[in-house]
């Protein structure tokens, strides 16, 4: 019963371009959404979050967009850097994670 889905297992972008990672959720009652970043052999680290009262939240190069009617959120990274290469997870209810998207940023 996946309550949060990340349908793209991987994404490859060129350095300097935009990376867009997507996430869909099933329950319209969810009101807080988080993105985490994970490097190999490390635990996930919190990246950015958004509350359902907003439709956008920005932190430097990272912006999260929330479309409540579509039950969809996306993470934009601009410009993408090689150090952004990692697995990105979206999460709902503070603790339920999607399957992750592996981002590779090529120099």
């Amino acid at each position: 019963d996946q309550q949060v889905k990340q349908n793209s297992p991987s994404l490859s972008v060129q350095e300097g371009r935009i990376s867009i990672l997507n996430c869909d959720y099933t329950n319209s009652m969810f009101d807080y959404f988080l993105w985490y970043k994970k490097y190999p052999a490390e635990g996930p680290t919190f990246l950015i979050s958004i509350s359902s009262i907003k439709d956008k939240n920005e932190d430097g190069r990272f912006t999260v967009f929330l479309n409540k009617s579509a039950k969809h959120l996306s993470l934009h990274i601009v410009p993408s850097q090689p150090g952004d290469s990692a697995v990105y997870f979206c999460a709902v209810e503070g603790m339920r994670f999607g399957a992750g998207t592996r981002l590779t940023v090529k120099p």
Partner: protein
Amino acid sequence: DTAVSQTPKYLVTQMGNDKSIKCEQNLGHDTMYWYKQDSKKFLKIMFSYNNKELIINETVPNRFSPKSPDKAHLNLHINSLELGDSAVYFCASSRYRGEKLFFGSGTQLSVL
């Protein structure tokens, strides 16, 4: 001074053995969690404790028993280990339930 630390980092053991993984957080958080990341890389919640009380138990076999002696510690004991238990186990904590999580670096468990 790592915020969430778990030991050991690697654990290799035989089927049928009993093993424990320890977790400690020095963030003063009220809520702690155990996650399992399987071979398909899904990060699945197993348990959550709030102030030493179990609040979430996600259909985990009862061979897995979490223990929280105080709110800074959440240990995971696994009895009669099976091949399918091989995974990376992550401990995490949050200020309260629903808040962002702080993760340990994981314990790679290999059951032979």
